[in-house]
């Protein structure tokens, strides 16, 4: 059954059927009812691809994420999908496994499939790559810190400030030998987190030690290996700032295997506040990144661009959210009120 058959059955033109499907307010009520009943009777479903060609809209967006196994990304995706679903859009999820070539290939495919917009999360692309996409008229919004946010609307937090506050918290609990365990990805955020960590130490006139800055893969396993490296040092750090909750879980696992108590012997702070951070023992003190909100507002900015009917392209909007220290039990702090606010 196609649109022509419906038109024949109803004794109207193809254009009238099309209007019923797409602009029913322009069709006389009687004709509309008749055609709708035939459509219902014949169980006709409009060709989705044909619609896309006709309206230059496919009601799909691409969600490009660096790593599907990192729960941070899932929280963001959930937020974005909530908005897309409400707009009656379908989301295509592309997991690029931290591989820039895979990311480029996926984006190429999304464009070929005529998606209406792309939400990039912690993208590996260069500014040149991004401008090439924008030049094709595809709306793009980025979630996370990037170096090219002058070109693209984005939502992010200030990772440097957040890392500074996390390190300050460790200092306030009395630690001076503080190590940072940082992941290889996402690159921009990690380098900013290191800057925040170093700023906090410098302020307290604590000299930076190369061996206290360890880079590993941003996974639980990476965290485990990094913690082992710290333990093997002649003077292991008394406090560890892990730049993601996954890394922190790995550290917990390693400490547990070596009968080192958190927080009694080593204080630990994570980053992200993924759901599991509240379930591990001891409950993880971490930086709360408003992940769901970042997904929601990222998608909102994308739909602002998709739905923008004005001739002028909208200004690039960079929305920065506040992150917050989520004080729990892994740092050995004393003030209970810190956990409440």
């Amino acid at each position: 059954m196609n649109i022509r058959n419906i038109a024949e059955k109803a004794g109207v033109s193809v254009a009238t059927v099309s209007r019923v499907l797409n602009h029913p307010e322009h069709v006389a009520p009687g004709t509309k009812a008749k055609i709708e009943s035939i459509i219902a009777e014949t169980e006709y479903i409009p060709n989705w691809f044909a619609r896309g060609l006709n309206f230059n809209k496919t009601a799909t967006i691409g969600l490009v994420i660096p790593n599907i196994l990192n729960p941070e990304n899932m929280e963001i995706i959930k937020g974005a999908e909530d908005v897309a679903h409400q707009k009656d859009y379908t989301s295509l999820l592309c997991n690029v496994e931290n591989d820039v070539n895979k990311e480029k290939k996926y984006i190429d495919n999304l464009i070929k499939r005529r998606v209406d917009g792309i939400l990039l999360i912690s993208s590996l692309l260069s500014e040149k790559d991004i401008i090439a996409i924008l030049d094709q008229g595809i709306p793009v919004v980025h979630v996370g810190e990037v170096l090219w946010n002058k070109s693209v609307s984005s939502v992010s937090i200030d990772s440097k400030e957040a890392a500074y506050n996390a390190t300050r918290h460790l200092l306030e609990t009395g630690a001076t030998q503080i190590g940072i365990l940082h992941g290889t990805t996402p690159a921009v955020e990690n380098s900013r987190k290191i800057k925040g960590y170093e700023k906090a130490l410098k302020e307290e006139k604590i000299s930076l030690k190369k061996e206290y800055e360890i880079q590993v893969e941003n996974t639980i396993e990476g965290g485990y290996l990094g913690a082992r490296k710290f333990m093997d040092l002649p003077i292991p750090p008394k406090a560890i700032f892990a730049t993601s909750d996954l890394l922190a879980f790995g550290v917990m696992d390693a400490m547990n295997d070596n009968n080192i108590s958190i927080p009694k012997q080593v204080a630990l702070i994570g980053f992200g506040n993924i759901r599991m951070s509240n379930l591990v023992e001891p409950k993880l003190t971490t930086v709360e990144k408003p992940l769901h909100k970042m997904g929601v507002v990222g998608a909102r900015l994308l739909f602002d661009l998709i739905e923008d009917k004005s001739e002028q392209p909208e200004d690039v909007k960079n929305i920065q959210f506040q992150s917050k220290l989520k004080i729990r039990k892994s740092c050995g702090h004393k003030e209970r009120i810190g956990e409440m606010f």
Partner: protein
Amino acid sequence: MNTIFLGLKLKNPIIVSAGPWSRDGQSIKKAIEAGAGAVITESIVSDVIIDVRPRIAYNGTGAQNLRLYSDIQIEDWEREMKIAKSGGGIVIASVSGHTPSELAYLATKMEFFGADAIEINVSNPMGESLEILASDADQMYLIIKEVVNHVNIPVMVKLSQTASNISRVAKAAKKAGASGVSAINSVRCILGVDIETGELMLPTYGGYSGTPIRPLGLAAVATVSQTVDIPICGIGGIDNYINAIEYIMLGASAVQIGTTVMINGFERITEIVHDFETWEREKKIKSINEIKGKALLNLKSFDEMKVEPVVCYSNKEICVEGCNACIKGCMYQAISPGNGDVIIDKPLCTGCGVCLFVCPIKKLSLKW
């Protein structure tokens, strides 16, 4: 009585504040129909969170609430604003967030959806950090400036009693281009403890509102009014038209009511507006400006107060049998019982004034 506030023409100065009573289009419409001069939406945020239950406790005079923000996503406020404004009326959008860019985005959306003005609310005492954002004048300046730069409608800023210097924040608001301020937001509180069980009335800190915070609100409005030239909307414990006039006489151009609507229903809006307008008619007052700030003229500094050698005198009213309230209440032992009367030892009396307020029959007064 028409009132110009934030450059908006209100049919009266009684505004319904942001709260669960203005949570959606229907409730806002209802409040407008009840006679409100304007209605402020419940505070709108970037991402909604689920309400806790229960979230409100009331002890007969004051309320503690844990209700944080609107549970309607901003996309859906487009529809709600249409409903809210379908019968006409002024709707102000309350937006809440933590950073300049976040708040500016919410404000532009609500402007697009038809809000007549914005109220920036970063002064809620619950859920946020120990030190609330609205107590930091520098941060507030950045936030307000960003919002003002992004919208073409007036912006009002809700101030907090918690700020150590509320004038500094109000000055920052003016400097950043705000069209007005509102004061005060609810105050961080714990309503009470059950001493049998050790349980709290509500399990976390909340915002205190209602009659008991009115003296705090009055002082805040007077303070801002005496230090910053910016239109003020008085909030806090307004239960009736008299309270509304008190705020106006201390410098407010308009007032907000909330808790009283929650406890007594939307009829309370109609009542307050009616009583307010009746009072004005009786007093032949044509414009709010005739009474605005009237009480500020009598608000003195400590140094300006002339010390009159007043002492307590009693009139001929016969005491309530066995009352002794003034005798117990006299810190200077200047009052002793007489026969259906009291005897005042004038040299002992220091004219403090407590006895006047504890006497149930208004028998006592201060004179010299």
